[in-house]
Every structure is written in C-alpha cells, then in structure tokens.
C-alpha cells in the first residue's frame, strides 16, 4: 500500500564545528575590504583555486563566484544585480557573473571608476576593492571566461588580465582521466601556471615565493585529506553530517587562507563526525531518506532547503558540488612540487567532465552513501552544470533504480525559485521511494 508522505517532524542537526567557518569567512572578507589600507594589491579571480598562488604572492584576493554566493546567501544580492541590469546585462546571464559585474559597477575607487566610466557609489556589503589585476582560470565553462573578459572591458582594458585555458576532459578515445590526453592537458596547464606566475611577478614587482606556495599546499593537502576522510565517514547510517554541512565548509576549502587554522578546522569537523557516529547521532533527526544533490548550490535558499529536506526526514548526504570539487584528491598533491597537483585539481573541476564520467561519479556516490534518490538543482542561468542532468537522472534510475527529482532555481538569482513546486516534487519523490520500498519488502 502506498504510504502517504507526511512530515516526519525531522529537523536539521547541523554540525557545531562549522560555526567556526562563519567566523573565519567574516574575518577573511573584512581583511579583503581593508586591503588597500594595508597597501596590499588586490587580485580578482574566477573559476579554479588561484587563491593559493595569490596567498603565496602576498596578495589580497577575491573569488568572484564566492562573493556573489556570499551576497546571495545573505540575501544582499539584489542591488548588485539591479546595477548590472541597469547597465544592460540581461537576466538570463549567469547570475554569479551578473552579481559580480554589478559589484564592479558599484565599487568605489576613484581611478578605475573615473577612467572606465563605472558607476561610483557604496557597495552592498562592505567595500569590495576593485582589482589591480585579474586571473581567469575557468574549466569547462566558456561563460566564466567571458565574464572575466567583460570585466576586463568594463575596466577599459586597463586592469591587466591573465587567462589560464583549461582543456575540457572530453576523452576522444575513452578515458579522459588517464593516458595521453590527460598527460597533455596536465602539462599544458602546468606550463600556463609558470606563465601566470611570471605575470604575477610582473604585477607585484617581486619574485614569487615558491617556498610559501609549498607551505600553502602542505596545509591544503592536510586539510583536504581530513575533509575527504570526514566525507567518507558519512556513509554511516544515520549520516552524521549532511550536504548542508559541507556547503558551510565550502569557503574554507575553496578560498580561505591556507594555514594551521584550516587544518584545525577540518580536524574538528572530522572529530565531531566521528563522535556522532559513535553516539549514533544523525545530521537529520529521524533519518528516513538518503539523497544526493546534483548541481551548484541555490545560495538564496540555503537555510530554507536545509530545513525543508530535514522536515521530511530526508538527509541530503553528498553532492557533485561538495564532493567532486575542491581538492578531492589530496594524495596527488606534492607540496615540494606543487604545480602538477594544483593543475590536476583545476582539471578535475566538476564542470570539466563529460556526461559519461559524471554519470559514473554519481552512481559511485549513490552506492557509497547508500542513497535512495537524487535531487537535481537545475540552475537556470548555469549552462555548464545542467547540460548532462537529464542523462544522469536517467542513468541513476536505470542502473540503480533510485528516484530522482528536478527543480529549477539558480545560484544567485532568487527570482527563478518556486518553493511550492519544490515541495510538491520533493513529496512526490519521497512517495515514490516509499512505494518502491513496499514493493521490495
């Protein structure tokens, strides 16, 4: 007999250790906003983790997507998006791009603003300093490169830009992750890193600190190892940490300065997960369903979605964005020879894989974490994450018999989200899982 889905009365039981992340992030942004006062040069970058090079070079850095995500998560994105709209950037553009471009249009530093004819005025959140130079390192997504190009033109081509071209892992003859195609791609990216470092040296007028880069990568390796080990532990039933906890930990692994505090943070996260496993404490009280979240995060509705899923006893455990990005293969990092390991991770960005590989990864994760269903966030303005989603869903249903649901939303534009629709589809999926269980039983 079908079982009516009723609210299980579950609630999210968030990791306590991730609260530290909030403090670290606030400190980071405040440091960035005051960079000019300290006489620090500012680098803007988009795409992959150029921050490790920036930190080694003694720069202040801003990851454009991270800034847009932060604004959206704090519901402060609208003024920047309106500024971009007013300038003529359409709503169908990547909303990370539109938000970040809007911030550039609103930022207030005299020289760049005057010369480039940008709109001066106070920014939404703090004072994001305009860059001294920019680096684009966007795998898989041409829109990301074009976004940086747009900023370059908006700055009147007066802010130097460097582009790292990252080959798409297509796999002309089978495996794109090994063999000659991989080797060539890796060598190409490493070569560009060396050119990029020369570019950084030209902009900073000082030699690049290779020792510092090695030190940074030592801490990144440690932190990422702890993070991936902690993620693996979440195969436990009930899961001790959820996708939302990993989202809260994105900033530390993505762009915060690498150092002992980063290692301590992920050590504390792992320790808390281990304690929860020992105590049989779940990330969702009354866990009834275990789910995967495909797609980039819907930053505008982070809290809402975490509560919504939990209220049904649905533990969202893993996702493409949290588990297939951000230093996922720390064993490949050699701090003494860091460039190949860094290049490896630039190439392994989840936007840079073929549909066949993404299907394989998703099915692996579904098996590993004993999942009942896959939720697809079809981010309306992201034409990189979304193209293979129908095929991933079909493969998950066909190969594993798991249920799937899709909902449209967006990374930073709240107007694309319809909560009633999400609720309806979620309930339908959970009902389907219940029916499936009764049949198996």
């Amino acid at each position, binding site marked *: 007999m079908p079982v009516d889905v009723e609210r299980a009365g579950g609630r999210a039981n968030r990791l306590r250790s991730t609260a530290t992340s909030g403090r670290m992030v606030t400190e980071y942004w405040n440091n960035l906003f005051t960079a000019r006062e300290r006489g620090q040069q500012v680098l803007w970058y988009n795409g992959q983790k150029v921050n490790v090079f920036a930190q080694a070079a003694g720069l202040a850095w801003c990851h454009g997507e991270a800034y847009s995500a932060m604004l959206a998560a704090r519901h402060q994105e609208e003024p920047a998006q309106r500024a971009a709209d007013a300038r003529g950037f359409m709503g169908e553009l990547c909303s990370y791009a539109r938000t970040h471009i809007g911030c550039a249009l609103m930022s207030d530093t005299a020289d760049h603003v005057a010369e480039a004819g940008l709109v001066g005025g106070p920014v939404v959140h703090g004072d994001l300093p305009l860059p001294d130079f920019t680096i684009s390192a966007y795998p898989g997504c041409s829109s990301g490169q074009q976004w940086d190009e747009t900023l370059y033109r908006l700055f009147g081509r007066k802010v130097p830009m460097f582009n790292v071209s990252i080959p798409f892992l297509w796999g002309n003859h089978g495996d794109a992750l090994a063999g000659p195609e991989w080797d060539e791609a890796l060598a190409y990216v490493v070569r560009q890193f060396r050119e990029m470092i020369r570019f950084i040296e030209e902009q900073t007028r000082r030699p690049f600190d290779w020792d510092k880069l090695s030190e940074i990568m030592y801490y990144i390796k440690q932190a990422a190892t702890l993070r991936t080990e902690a993620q693996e532990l979440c195969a436990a039933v009930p899961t001790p940490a959820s996708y939302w906890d990993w989202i809260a930990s994105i900033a530390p692994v993505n762009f915060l300065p690498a150092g002992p505090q980063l290692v301590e943070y992920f050590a504390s996260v792992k320790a808390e997960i281990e304690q929860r496993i020992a105590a049989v404490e779940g990330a969702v009280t009354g866990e009834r369903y275990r789910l995967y979240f495909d797609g980039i995060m819907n930053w505008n509705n982070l809290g809402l979605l975490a509560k919504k899923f939990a209220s049904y006893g649905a533990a969202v455990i893993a996702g493409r964005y949290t588990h297939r990005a951000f230093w996922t293969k720390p064993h490949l990092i050699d701090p003494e020879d860091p460039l190949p390991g860094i290049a490896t991770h630039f190439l392994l960005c989840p936007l840079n894989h073929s549909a066949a590989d993404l299907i394989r990864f998703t099915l692996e994760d579904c098996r590993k974490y004993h999942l009942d269903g896959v939720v697809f966030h079809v981010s309306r303005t992201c034409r990189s994450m979304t*193209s293979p989603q129908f095929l991933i869903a079909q493969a998950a249903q066909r190969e594993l018999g798991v249920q799937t649901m899709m909902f449209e939303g967006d990374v930073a534009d709240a107007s694309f989200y319809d909560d009633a629709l999400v609720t309806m589809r979620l309930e339908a999926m959970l009902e389907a899982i219940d029916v499936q269980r009764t049949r198996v039983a």
Partner: protein
Amino acid sequence: MRTGILERLAEAAGDPWSYAAQWKRRTGRAVVGILPMNFPAELVHAAGALPLLVQQSREPITVGNAIFPTFYCGYSRSLVDQAARGRCEVLDALLFVDNCVQIIGAADVIRLTRPELPTRYFQLNSSVGDGDSVPTAERAFRSLRMELADLVGPVTDAAVTEAIALFNENRRLLREIRALRNHTGVLSSRQMQTLITSSMVMDRAEHTQLLTELLAELTAAAAARPAGVRVHLSGHMCHPPHPDLLDMIEESGATVVNDDLYHGLRYIATDVRADGDPLAALAQWYVDRDATVPCPTRVLSRTSWATYLADQVRATGADGVVMLMPKFCEPQMYHHPQLCEALDKQQVPYLLIETEHEGMPMEALRTRIESFLELIALRG
C-alpha cells in the same frame, strides 16, 4: 538559369541531410559533421570527405527537450533534437573545436545518445590575445588531422594546400557577391543567407563552380540599390537568424547594407594564407578571424566588437543597427551593453530583437521593426 542556381543552392541549404545523403551515394565517400565557429573545414575536404557544418533545423524541438535543458540556445537544442530523432544518420563522425559551453554540452549529450557516431573534440585556446593561441591551434589541428586519417583517410599537406586554395576562392566569390548585393540589392537577405548556408553544407568544389556562374548572372542583372532605411544586421554568432525574420526586416522598408552575422560576413571575411605550412596557416587563420571581425566568444582579444560595429556603421553609412540576439546566447548578452554604448556615442539608433528557435511573435516584431524604421526615417 539564375533561378536554377539559386534554387539548387536553396535546396541544399534547406535540407542539408538529403544533400549529404545524395552526395554520399554519388561519391561513396564519408560525410563528417562539423560544428561552428572556427572549425577548419579544409582539413575534412582534404581527407576526401564532405565537411557538413550542421545547421539548425527548422523543425520544432520535441524529443530533444527530454534530454537537454530548454534554457539553452536554440542551435544547441536543435543539434540534440536532430541527433535524438536520427536525422544525423548520414554522418560518419562529428567534430568540433570551440569551447562554447552550450555546444560542448550538446555534443556531449549527442555522444551519449548516439554512441555509434564518433564525436571528437580538439579544443582551441579561446584566449586569442595569448601568444600561445596559434601554437595551441596548430597542435589541435595536427591532432585533428590524425583523427581524420583514422576515421576517413590520410590528409596530406598537398591536399590541405589545395583545399585552402579552393575554400579561399569560395570565400572570395561569396564576398564579391555580398558586396554586389550590399550595393545593389540584387539579392535579398534571405538569398544571401542561402548562399552562405549552402557553402557550409555542400561540396566546396561544386559550390564554387555554381557561385562563379551565379556571380556572372548577378553582375549582369545588377541595378541600383533600392531605397530604404539602410541597416546593419548584427549578432547571431554561430547559426542563422530565421529567414522569415530577414524577409520581414526588408519588407518593412529596410535595405541591409552590412552585417556581422556568422551566416554572413563572419563566415567569409577571412582567408587562410596560401603559402607555407598549411596547418600553421590554418592555425593563424583561427586568430585572424577574430582580428577581422571580432567574435564575442573569444577572450583577451586585441579587437573590440563594439568599436568594430561603430566603425562599420560609419564606413557603410548605415542609418541604424538591428541587433539579432539568439535567446540564451551568453557571449552576445555579455557584449550587448557595450555595443549599445558605442552606438549611443555615435548617435546611431539600434533595435534589439531576441530571436528564438520557434514561436517568435512575428507580427509583434514587425510592429517594432516598422516603428524603428519610421523613427529613423523621421530623423531624416
């Protein structure tokens, strides 16, 4: 006779799959599908195959909607839909080189749904301002040549050089016809688009011969350019605007004097160097294309589409610009504000029309176009 040539070209342009199937039956040779924008079709021709630049189908997208999101450009969705419906059966392979995220996504979905069709990607460095972009292109084209050798047959330097000469001649003829048409209106915009589209799908030697004959006839028939508001058509970087839209623009009283459409000037503006190493020449051609007509899909370009557009309007004496933007085309959306600013600075009026694969509100667009042209006419 003239009508005969145009009809023949229109038939191929209107149904490339049938043309390719007939060509294949007639010659016994392979048909290789290629995707825009910078693919060196000369290499496929040199391999003895027919390079067929896959066109957007005019059929409504149906099956494709089940496997590819609807918020992608009409061209990428049409590609997926055609493959899903089995329209691409004539192809022996599908090859591409550009890193447009929507084209990559479409090709990837095609690859999974049509695993029997070899689908290969040789990525160009889109950062054309980099010193590395020409060597990277050359490496990509050398890999592409090896792949063609496996899929179709050997590709010699001599064959590539010969293909370059043929394709350059084809482009030259198209430019000459286009210049004649821009000055005399001897062809409509729809017909001009037919000439370009047919070049993309037909055997180049056959097409070049037909163009030679057509040019002679058109030259003889040329008359004074019809009066009308002189407009420049801008946009559509990788697939054509609907010909009905072009008809409507002209029927409303516009005379198209220039364009920067892919199925227009972009496709034919740049020749490949005819001397030296042919693959090096093709690699240089890739970068030269952006220098000739700036492409918004490229980054760190030393050229500017906005400056180019403003300069072209001034040079041709266009009264206004009709911007044709395919819905969901991100590169064009990114450039749009600066294009408008460049035209505003020159006090050139412009009209943006967002085009779609199907369901365009033609009568509403007609009203907007007519109003735009009337405003220009009133300005005198």
